[in-house]
């Protein structure tokens, strides 16, 4: 009994902050909730969500912004990691590259908001090199607004993937690389034929983790764009927030959260399963 008593508080704490809110959200999703008035709706909220164009738009935005951001981060992180993983500075000081990740997300969002919108820093820079002639209104176009979110996310989170990829490359057996060189392989052949396939499980795990994180993108949207223009940057998290805390449709917001959780689990599970299955054969 004593051991159970020892771990009891920690378990209770975890259950209180994870299991209880989760179950509560599922329960709440079955009601139409207007503050203290709860009326049974069954699967009504879910039926409404499936027909809600804004929900599908938010899902699409999340996929577009998240997908592009993730693709860009992965490509940049992998390229930089491949070119510098043998560098002694990177070996010794790779922790330095984690700096952007250590900033508070809201601070990062404000910095980029200043740089893009309020402070016009990016516009001024682009004008000074002659790429644009007028001040750019980043929130005036769907793709420019999405680009601001992508840039902010890439800036903050590329180091996370970089550090994982550098670690994986540094952990590779140097003899294998040397054997490939003697077999006549160029650096790019070594990368495509040997390093990349060997890193596959690590890449899948890192990208999946990052992908799950990106689907919950909220802070940047809330601070930088608030879903504008015309809902083009409204991600799922922001949609749920808007439904819950702006329109006070708590049951509806809960149903959307449950659906989002379900979609995330299914997608992540499918990717990981497929990646590891084909890696084994």
């Amino acid at each position, binding site marked *: 009994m004593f051991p159970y008593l020892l771990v009891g508080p920690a378990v209770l704490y975890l259950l209180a902050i994870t299991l209880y809110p989760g179950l509560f959200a599922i329960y709440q999703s079955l009601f139409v909730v207007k503050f203290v008035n709860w009326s049974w709706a069954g699967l009504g909220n879910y039926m409404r969500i499936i027909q809600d164009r804004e929900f599908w738009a938010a899902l699409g935005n999340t996929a577009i912004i998240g997908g592009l951001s993730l693709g860009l981060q992965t490509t940049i992180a992998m390229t930089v990691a491949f070119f510098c993983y043998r560098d002694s500075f990177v070996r010794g000081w790779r922790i330095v590259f984690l700096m952007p990740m250590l900033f508070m997300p809201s601070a990062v969002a404000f910095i980029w908001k200043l740089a893009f919108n309020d402070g016009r820093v990016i516009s001024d820079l682009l004008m000074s090199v002659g790429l644009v002639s007028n001040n750019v209104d980043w929130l005036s176009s769907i793709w420019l607004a999405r680009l601001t979110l992508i840039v902010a996310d890439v800036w903050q989170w590329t180091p996370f993937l970089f550090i994982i990829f550098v670690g994986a490359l540094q952990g590779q057996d140097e003899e*294998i690389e040397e*054997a490939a060189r003697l*077999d006549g392989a160029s650096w790019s052949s070594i990368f495509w034929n040997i390093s990349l396939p060997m890193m596959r499980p690590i890449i899948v795990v890192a990208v999946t983790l990052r992908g799950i994180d990106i689907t919950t993108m909220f802070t940047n949207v809330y601070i930088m764009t608030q879903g504008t223009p015309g809902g083009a940057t409204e991600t799922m998290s922001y949609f749920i927030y808007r439904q819950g805390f702006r329109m006070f449709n708590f049951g509806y917001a809960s149903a959307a959260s449950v659906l989002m959780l379900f979609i995330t689990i299914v997608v992540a599970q499918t990717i990981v399963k497929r990646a590891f299955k084909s890696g084994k054969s």
Partner: protein
Amino acid sequence: MASILLKNIVKSFGSFVGVQDMNLDIVDEEFLVLLGPSGCGKTTTMRMIAGLEHPTEGEIRIGGELMNDIDARDRDVAMVFQGYALYPNMSIYENIRFPLRMRQVPKAQHDERIRRAAEMVELGPFLERKPGALSGGQRQRAALARAIVRQPQVFLMDEPLSNLDAKLRASMRVQIKHMQRELKVTTVYVTHDQIEAMTLADRIVIMNKGVIQQIGTPDDIYSNPANTFVAGFIGSPPMNLIAGTAQNGTFSAAGARVPCPANLSGNITLGIRPEDCLVGGDNLQGLVYGVEPTGDITYLTVRTANKTVEIKAGREFRAPIDSAIAVGFDTSRLYFFGEDGARVGGN
């Protein structure tokens, strides 16, 4: 097929000199073994031939062509690594095929060459497996097949058998030697195992602290060691080295006394191989320290005042520990080394 020439090769790592002024001429089709203890510079020498390290000074030529500035991938050498270095994500078939793909060998030739190489190392049934599904010996054979498939000018082998058990090592030794004779490819083989060196080599290069100690055939190195390092490194158990003094044609040390060339005097080290010692005789007096019967032979260790001496005694020999024993030396097989360790006389 090609000769290899190393001319005044120096390799430094900062202030540490890994290889010092090395000159070596490896003839075409020769099987040359670089032998020495860990850190003696043998692997560095091989890696310089491969192009994985660049010499600080000196010239490396393969087939007469200067190789100093030629990248590893453009040198026509194949290397077998101690850890096999197979590509874990590829099947054995794809592993063996990799150098053919990288060197743009016509695809039509691939299958036949891969199967021929696999046959040579008896790996035919395992081609579809991944390296992780093979035993150590099979992996080593796969690494060999990958090296031979492209018919390189030079084979480099870096302690390829050191991860295998003793029995497998013996059979792989025979296989490597047979393969080298069949393919007639100049081979440089690095090992710290003197049995491997003696059994495989046409010539052995013994190195210590980055310096070549002796170059010669296995017989030559065994029979005529140039210095105490070589004498103490070759042989199992190695040559007994007894420090003493020579005067008026007699060498004497605590408990030992043998005739020596009259021209020797001062501090001298006597060398005598364990098989050239006989129980009974009057050259060495001591106490039995250990008796190790192995079936076909009994190893006897005798302790004198400041030294233990190994002797290969007959298979029936037994003696109680700490009993007094007298040992005789075959005086036609004595070696004498000067204070600097260089051979000064004997045999």
